[in-house]
């Protein structure tokens, strides 16, 4: 027989072509490009997805997208689209995952009928439609002026916009890992995330890279100086966490998602707790020094309270006056916000305020109860703090806290003063304030307020300093937390050792109420 395939072959020739096209897709930018990528210490997008998701769980979508090369009608090969994506599982739960393939044109976008990923595209549609988390593995430098020559016109900003990325932030967890040099759109997408991470040595992120900076400002600067982790994570807080390897990055992504529900219509995933709920660590009764000028290790305090090994700190290198961490109490996910007395005595500076704003909004969005461990003398003071707009950013933190509707537990460890202290309570719910015997509170710390409030009295005294100290001592005696408890101005004072069982009892009791308020949260008003 000639001319047509034997019937027994069926569609095998076409399946062979499918296999060949898939092989081209798996070859990415080709052997040399992949080797160069590896020499730079970076994994390919396919290696990244394999390293991140459950074994054999990746179902690719858009494998064949790319640019076919033909001789007449005969296929010579296909250059894949520089974005790999699909459906996968992490810890058995479905996720949408995708990322740029840097080995093809540096991951710069490709013009097909439908975008695979990036701003908009199938991967964001998948996350939105199926209400599953989105993981962006970012390794692309965004738009290029060369697109004008391809299209014959320039693109209006936002034609391929961020609207889907913004929508996702209120519906499903979005994680972004910066795994190369991200500028422009990909850098913007990294910010439009609930949590982001970058890798020392291979990752930089900025609005525009060194050539643009030099042309615009005359500054010669390396990409690491401009947007490496010391700037982007520790100094600016542009990206949340930094790690030292891509493998550590994948482990942190899995860890972050382990605290998250798949979407805002689900409750956060609870685990069986092996750490005794009634564990009362003796160290807690001694951890706060009697001398009010002496700081202590708030991270150790947090570890004593929550389920052992459950702390995952968000932004540990940024805004160090505040500690924000996801953790578990009796297996239930909680968000811990703790002032850090080791840095400015725990005062809220502009960085701490920004950190608190994002963390509170994220926990509120995903119905994660908040525990404030309060030791805050107020907003940071001084010229630098005022110049940085600490008051405005601090009040934004207060505003966001007052909009939150998730159950909140305020545990006053030591100082709780002023507007920063006000922002640690749940005004839309129970307003449950628990204190340790070491707690103190007020409009402002006594030592800061006496000189102003008793100026004439002090000035009239023969020994002004002695009179000031005398007034301080009188006021401090009346500032005992037990006196406020008598007035039921604070709901309970507990032995520090009882904190874990006490909180676990109430957090367990709030779980049923959490289920009654699942879903997206509407936000009204104008953030100051």
């Amino acid at each position, binding site marked *: 027989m000639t001319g047509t395939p034997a019937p027994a072959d069926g569609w095998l020739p076409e399946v062979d072509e499918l296999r060949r096209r898939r092989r081209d897709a798996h070859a990415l930018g080709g052997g040399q490009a992949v080797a160069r990528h590896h020499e730079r210490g970076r994994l390919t997008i396919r290696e990244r997805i394999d390293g991140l998701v459950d074994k054999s769980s990746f179902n690719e979508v858009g494998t064949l997208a790319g640019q076919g090369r033909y001789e007449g009608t005969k296929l010579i090969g296909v250059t894949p689209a520089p974005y790999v994506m699909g459906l996968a599982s992490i810890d058995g739960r479905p996720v949408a995952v995708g990322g740029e393939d840097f080995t093809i044109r540096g991951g710069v976008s490709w013009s097909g009928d439908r975008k695979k990923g990036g701003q908009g595209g199938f991967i964001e549609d998948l996350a939105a439609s199926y209400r599953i988390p989105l993981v962006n593995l970012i390794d692309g430098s965004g738009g290029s002026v060369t697109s004008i020559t391809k299209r014959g016109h320039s693109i209006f900003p936002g034609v391929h916009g961020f609207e889907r990325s913004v929508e996702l932030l209120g519906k499903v967890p979005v994680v972004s890992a910066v795994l190369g040099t991200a500028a422009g759109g990909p850098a913007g997408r990294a910010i439009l995330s609930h949590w982001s991470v970058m890798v020392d040595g291979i990752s930089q992120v900025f609005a525009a890279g060194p050539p643009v900076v030099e042309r615009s400002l005359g500054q010669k600067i390396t990409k690491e100086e401009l947007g490496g982790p010391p700037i982007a994570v520790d100094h600016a807080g542009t990206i949340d966490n930094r790690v030292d390897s891509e493998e550590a990055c994948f482990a942190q992504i899995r860890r972050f998602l382990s605290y998250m529900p798949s979407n805002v219509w689900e409750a956060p995933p609870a685990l069986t707790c092996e750490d005794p709920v009634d564990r009362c660590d003796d160290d807690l009764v001694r951890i706060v020094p009697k001398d009010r*000028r*002496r*700081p202590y290790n708030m991270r150790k305090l947090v570890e004593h309270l929550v389920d052992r090994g459950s702390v995952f700190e968000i932004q540990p290198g940024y805004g*160090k006056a505040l500690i924000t961490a996801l953790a578990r109490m009796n297996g239930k996910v909680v968000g811990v916000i703790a002032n850090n*007395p*080791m*840095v*400015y*005595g725990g*005062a809220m500076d502009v960085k701490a305020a920004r950190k608190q704003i994002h963390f509170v909004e994220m926990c509120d969005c995903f119905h994660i109860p908040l525990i404030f461990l309060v030791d805050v*003398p107020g907003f*940071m*003071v*001084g010229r*630098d703090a005022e110049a940085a707009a600490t008051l405005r950013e601090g009040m934004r933190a207060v505003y966001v806290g007052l909009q939150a509707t998730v159950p909140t537990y305020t545990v006053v460890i030591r100082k709780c003063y002023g507007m920063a202290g006000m922002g640690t309570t749940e005004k839309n719910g129970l307003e449950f304030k628990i204190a340790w015997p070491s707690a103190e509170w007020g409009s402002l*710390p006594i*030592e*800061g307020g006496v000189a102003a409030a008793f100026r004439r009295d002090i000035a009239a005294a023969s020994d002004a300093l002695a009179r000031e100290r005398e007034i301080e001592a009188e006021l401090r005696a009346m500032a005992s937390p037990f006196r406020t408890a008598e007035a039921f101005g604070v709901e309970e004072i507990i032995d520090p050792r009882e904190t874990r069982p006490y909180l676990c009892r109430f957090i367990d009791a709030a779980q049923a109420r959490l289920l009654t308020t699942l879903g997206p949260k509407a936000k009204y008003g104008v953030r100051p």
Partner: protein
Amino acid sequence: MANVEAKSEVSGSVWQILAKVGQRIEPGDTIMIIESMKMEIPVIAEQGGTIEKFLVDEKAAIAEGQTVAILSA
């Protein structure tokens, strides 16, 4: 022998220098105390080494992130 810079995480004034030049410091040891926001904030060694020199004196005003001592690791 690499030099290691010990930095203060906070602005404030140097209240007390606890370590001495030539002293061996282990990670986690307190090098000096900064007075900031009416608190005694320790400058803690992130890496071990021997104190080569101090770049500040007691009572000096310091800025956030300022290097206060050099250690040889």
